[in-house]
Structures are given as C-alpha cells and as structure tokens.
C-alpha cells in the first residue's frame, strides 16, 4: 500500500535542511512589542488598555468583538506606550498596542490545572477561547469556533496537522521532536472537548524522525494513531489531510466538520495544552527564520508583537543579495514590503530569498493549455481556465469554473510553464464577484 495522500499536488524542493537541526531557542526579549489587535480571521479586538497603563505578561489587552474573534494578550510586562497603526504581513494597516518592555517578565496570575483532563469540555473550550488561541498554521482562524461545531454536525475524528508541507518551514517539526508529549496532551484536550475517541497525527514522510518520536509518544494511547503521509504539497491543507488520513472527502465549499472532522495544527495543539494545563494565553510561538538570504537560519520562540526586523537581526541579519522576505512559507506566504511588521499568532516562518531565487512575476506568457495545473490541482479545478477567464475580466465565467473552490495553495502557479500568476488572477476574480 502506498503512503496516505490525495489526488494531485506537487513536490517542490523542501529546503528544510536549512533549519531543521536548529533547536527551538527563545528569541531575545524585544525592548518593545507592537501587538496587532487583529491577528485572526474574524472581528478585530477592541483595545482593553489605555496609553500609559502598566500591563503584566499574559494580561488581556484586546477583547474580542463577536464570536468569531479571539482575545489578544500582552506578550511582555511593561507600559502601554501607544495604540498605533502598523503594517501587517499582508500589507494592510492594523491597529496595534505598543508595549515598552520593562524586562521583568512578570506574569499576570495564571490558573494552574494539574488535573486539566477532568475538566468539562465546556470549561476546556472556555480556556482555549480565553487563551486567544487561533490556528497557528497561518490562517489564524479562532480555534474555539472550530471546537464549537453545531449539533447537527457530529464530530468523530480530530486530526493534527504535522505535515508541514510548506517548503522551508520547520516550526511544527521541531515541536514534534522536542515536545512530543505536549503535542499529544494538546490532542487529548481537543479530543475531550469534542467528545471524540479517534485522533490522528498526519506527518509527511520527509520527517521520519518526527514520525518515530510521535509514534513513541502515542504508544499506549489506543485512540491516537500517527499517519505517515506522502511528501506532497499541499498535504497539510485541511481537506487534503483529511482525505489522506481518514479517506473522507469534505464536500465542495464545505468545512471539515461537514464530514465529522476537526483539524488542528501542531503548534496550536501545544498552545491548547498550555492553555488547559497552565492557563497560559497564546503570547509566543515558534517561528522558522530561514532561506538562503538569512545568515543563520533558526527556529525561534518569538513573543507575539516582536518586529520581524529584530528576529531577522538575531539570525545574523539578511545577506546583501536578499530581494524578498516572506511571512510564512514560499507557497502561501506573504511578501513583506517592510521588516517593520510584527510577528503574530499566525506567523509560521520568515523566509528570505536572494535575488537569484526570486521568480519575477511581471513577465509571463499565454496559457499553452498543457493541463499541468489541472493535473496537480488538489481541488480538482481547472486553474488554466480560471486564469484565462480572470485575465479577460470574465468573472462569471471564472465562477462557472468553480472559482470559489480554490483555496489559493499555489500548486498550479508553481507548475505553470508559462509562469502565469494564476493565484493572483484568482484573487482578482474573487474580489470582483460574489460566491
């Protein structure tokens, strides 16, 4: 039997060797942090602090507005220096709370729960919500929302995404290697919240050491199984991972819960464990700082709100020929126009590419209808037609080619021999029409 996988996909050079040997080390504490009040999909938070106010580490500084939202906490102890607009990784300006670090690292009182697994699912869910946990794979969807499926959508499986299918990134890999028990503990909390007895951890075959360690960690847990997946981007996309691990197909335009599954990222699972066990809010995360443009690639534990420029500096800085800096992975990450943007809960990596590795997107050819994109599209779409219709401004035609089923993984654009900016055209079409 072949390894678990889905239909389509590509295998770009994974380049994980740059940072995979580097253990997670805490980044230097920043002198000040700039914490965005909107780090998640959903309503931005309202500032809960005033300028000049003293805050402790872990204190709530932004309260959520609405259900699909997550609170934001101070990642350092210090004085609120300002509430300003700052560029986010996507280039939009977002409201941020700036805190001058007083260096004391003094925590706000946290509630320790040695017996956390005996808490009720509701209590655990509340802890996840209060800790401001969001999906840490990049999308940053508030986790408690995923953990509150409507009654008519029974969940029977939780899958942890250890695929880390984006090239370069090693943050989840390091967590699995260094803190396998915390990962498993997080998964167990998830299973308890959802009342589920089946848990899976999907890991790509290029991380066999992680597979071994995780398999050891779940030994004796009859309810949890490690699934070795084929190295194939985008294996870590929810729908693909579900297909690979439990062979279920999420209905088109549907959510994982429509087939009884909840997916969570490895980093998120660790954050969930910490929230349940120690009451610790999500104020720091592992960031892989890597790429041929970084002098010393590392996996750093970074406080949310730390400027990208600072953590880049802690990795030896950028090489002279660096031309592009990406927040996230090379397939779905965002190109930064400035390094003066804060690390958020969803920042999985900072990737610096030298001029020689940057593919200039301005020059592209016509679609030669080779069909490569159709072959690799994990969603079974026809990206060629999406790009052709969008290029001409035929938005309705693009919709007829299932425009809104595209989740912009970039696989089509990666393989296109004419170097067409398919994802960009898809985004353009999506912005010009409604589902």
């Amino acid at each position: 039997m072949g390894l678990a996988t889905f239909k389509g996909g590509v295998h770009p050079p994974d380049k994980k060797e740059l940072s995979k040997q580097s253990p997670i080390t805490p980044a230097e504490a920043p002198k000040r942090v700039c914490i965005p009040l909107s780090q998640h999909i959903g309503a931005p938070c309202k500032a809960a602090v005033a300028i000049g106010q003293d805050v402790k580490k872990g204190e709530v500084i932004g309260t959520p507005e609405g259900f699909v939202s997550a609170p934001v906490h101070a990642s350092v102890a210090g004085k609120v220096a300002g509430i300003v607009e700052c560029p986010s990784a996507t280039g939009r300006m977002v409201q941020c709370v700036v805190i001058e670090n007083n260096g004391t690292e003094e925590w706000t009182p946290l509630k320790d729960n040695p017996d956390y697994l005996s808490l009720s699912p509701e209590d655990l869910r509340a802890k996840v919500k209060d800790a401001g946990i969001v999906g840490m794979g990049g999308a940053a969807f508030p986790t408690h929302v995923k953990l509150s499926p409507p009654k008519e959508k029974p969940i029977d499986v939780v899958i942890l995404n250890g695929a880390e299918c984006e090239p370069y990134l090693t943050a989840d890999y390091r967590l699995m290697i260094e803190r396998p028990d915390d990962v498993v503990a997080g998964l167990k909390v998830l299973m308890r919240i959802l009342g589920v007895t089946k848990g899976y951890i999907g890991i790509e075959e290029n991380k066999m050491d992680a597979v071994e360690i995780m398999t050891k960690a779940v030994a004796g847990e009859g309810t949890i199984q490690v699934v070795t997946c084929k190295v194939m981007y985008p294996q870590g996309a929810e729908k693909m991972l579900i297909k690979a691990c439990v062979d279920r197909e999420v209905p088109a335009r549907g959510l994982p819960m429509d087939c009884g599954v909840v997916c969570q990222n490895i980093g998120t699972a660790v954050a969930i464990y910490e929230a349940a066990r120690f009451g610790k809010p999500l104020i720091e995360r592992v960031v892989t700082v890597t790429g041929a443009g970084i002098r010393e690639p590392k996996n750093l534990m970074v406080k949310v709100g730390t400027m990208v420029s600072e953590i880049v500096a802690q990795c030896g800085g950028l090489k002279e020929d660096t031309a592009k800096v990406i927040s996230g992975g090379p397939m779905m990450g965002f190109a930064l126009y400035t390094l003066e943007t804060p690390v958020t809960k969803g920042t999985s990596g900072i990737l610096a590419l030298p001029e020689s590795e940057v593919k200039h997107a301005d020059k592209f050819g016509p679609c030669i209808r080779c069909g490569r994109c159709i072959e690799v599209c994990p969603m079974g779409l026809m990206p060629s037609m999406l790009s052709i219709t969008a290029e001409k401004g035929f938005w309705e035609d693009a919709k007829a080619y299932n425009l809104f089923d595209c989740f912009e993984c970039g696989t089509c654009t990666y393989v296109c021999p004419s170097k067409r900016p398919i994802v960009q055209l898809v985004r353009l079409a999506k912005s010009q029409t409604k589902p």
Partner: protein
Amino acid sequence: METVRTPKEQQLIISASPHIRSEETTSRIMWSVSAALLPATIMAAYFFGPKAIFLIALTIVSAVAAEYAYQRAMNKEVTVCDGSAFLTGLLLGLNLPPTVPFYIPIVGSVVAIVLTKQLFGGLGFNVFNPALIGRAFLLISFPKLMTIWAEPTAQFVAMDAKTTATPLGIMKTEGLAKLMEVFGDKVSLYKSLAVGNVAGSLGETSAIAVLVGGIFLLIRGYISWHIPVSFLGSAAVLAWIFGGKGALFTGDPIMHLLSGGLMLGAFFMATDYVTSPSVKKGQLLFGVGCGFLTMLIRLKGGYPEGVMFAILIMNCFTPLIDRSFKSEVFGAVKVKKEAAK
C-alpha cells in the same frame, strides 16, 4: 511610532504567492519536443539524402522568419526564442514529401505561422495545429507536387531517386495483394515500415524513430499516454475489424499502425497542448475520434492517408470536449449525492 530600521534598508520585491516556481518553462517544453523529433529527422536524412535536410531546415527557417516578421510588423513582442515556431517548422518539414520544390516549405510555413497561429492570437490561441494546417493547405493547393513520393534510396547521396507510391497509396489503388508483391511477405513489409525504408513524408516513414521520440516525451512527462494510446488503439481496432477485404475481423492492424503518418500524428501532432483537450477524459475521446476518422478516411475516403484531416477535424471539437469534460471538483461528488437524497 518611530520604527526600528534594519541595518540594510532596501527595496524588497513584493508579489503574490507562490514565491517559488518549477524549472519548467514553455520554451524548455518546445525545445524538448523538438529534440524528441531528432531520431525521425536523422532517419529522414538517412533515407532521403541531403535534400531532406535542406527541406527541413528551410521549413524551420521560414517558420521562424514568418513569426519574427509578423510580430515585428504588428509591433508585438518577438517570441521566436520560445521554440514554438521552430517546432512548427520542424513538424511541417517532417510532413513534406521529399520531392517538393523549395517554395513549398516557404508557403507552408507562412500559412502555418501567420494564418493558423498568429492571426488567431499567437501561441496558445490557435484552434488548429499550425503544422497540419500548413500541410493541408499545401496538399489542397499543390495536389500534384504534394503527392510525388520518392524511393528511400538516397542515403546521404544527392541523387534523383525514382518516384514511387507510398505503401498506403498502393493499398488504396491496388490493394493488399500488390503491396505483398512489392515487399515480398508480411514480415519484410513490417520491417520496412518500422525502419522507414519506404516512400512517404520525410519524418513519418520510420515508425521506430518516431516511437523512440514519443516514448522520450512520455517518460519526461511532456505528453501523457491518453491521446497516443486511444488514437493508436482505436485505429488498430478499426483496422482489424474493417481493414480486410470482404470479411470483418480480417484487417491488418500492424500494417496500419506502422504506415503513413499515424505514429507521428499520434505522438507529436494530436498531442499538441493548445489544440487538444486539457482534461484526461477528454483526451481519450479526442484520441478515439482521431483514430476513427483516420481509419474512415484510409478505408473509405478518397485519400490514402487520413491522419492529418482526422486531427484537424478533432481540433474543431477540442473546445466542445473541454467544455463537456471538466475536471472533477474535490468533494463535488459528495455534494451531488447529498442533493439526491
């Protein structure tokens, strides 16, 4: 808020994701397909002499020149380096009889490049295979010149070869018995057809040489098996059923597969990305259509060979096939099932 600047303030490049791309490019594909035609080109030179090289080179040069001239004249970006005009020229050259005068390649190339490709919008927008339209135009405009076949005896020597008929031509006019008379027995007929030691268009006579190139394309993933297999398979089945004299199921599929332009057409012409369907299921239908039309023309039509018209007719259906055979959206089946409940 004052900002902390990086030591090396610089302009960073911004673009939409993904930020990495595969090494594959359109021009690499075009040059690879051209390279895959090298064995067939060498066999053409071997059997038909220096004139073959001259004709093929002239076709390529005129195709590239036509593209360059058109793009310059219309103030378009000149894209002759992408190799697609070179490939069209090479394919057209390999589809010419070895006896044609020098102006035939030039006319054919201009028709292929300007009329068939550029007037429809250039690479990616043409409805028909340019090389085949070029050849069809020549066949209709110069029916005499385009059907004078030479014996494959030149073998690097410049000499005027005797004219003769192609195996399929003999089949059409005088029947299988005559063909056997010419080649002796079945085995030597197959051998000649496989090696290419027969009359025919420059690059089509050696089935083995074409097959080697085709397999190279399959292995490198430049083409998929769907069109060649369905094309050759359906042609073979139809040849077996209807190719015999009188009784059904007495035809000779091997002879049909090895002769004429079937191999060249199935691996190099019908698989043209632009003019064939993009979805695999559609490609199967397209291939079967090509096989059916080829055998219809060969067995019942006025021409001895039908590959060219078969592919061109199927080219017409490509947009319709593409529209009817869309790829299957992930999760769509489940949605349909639920709707049916």
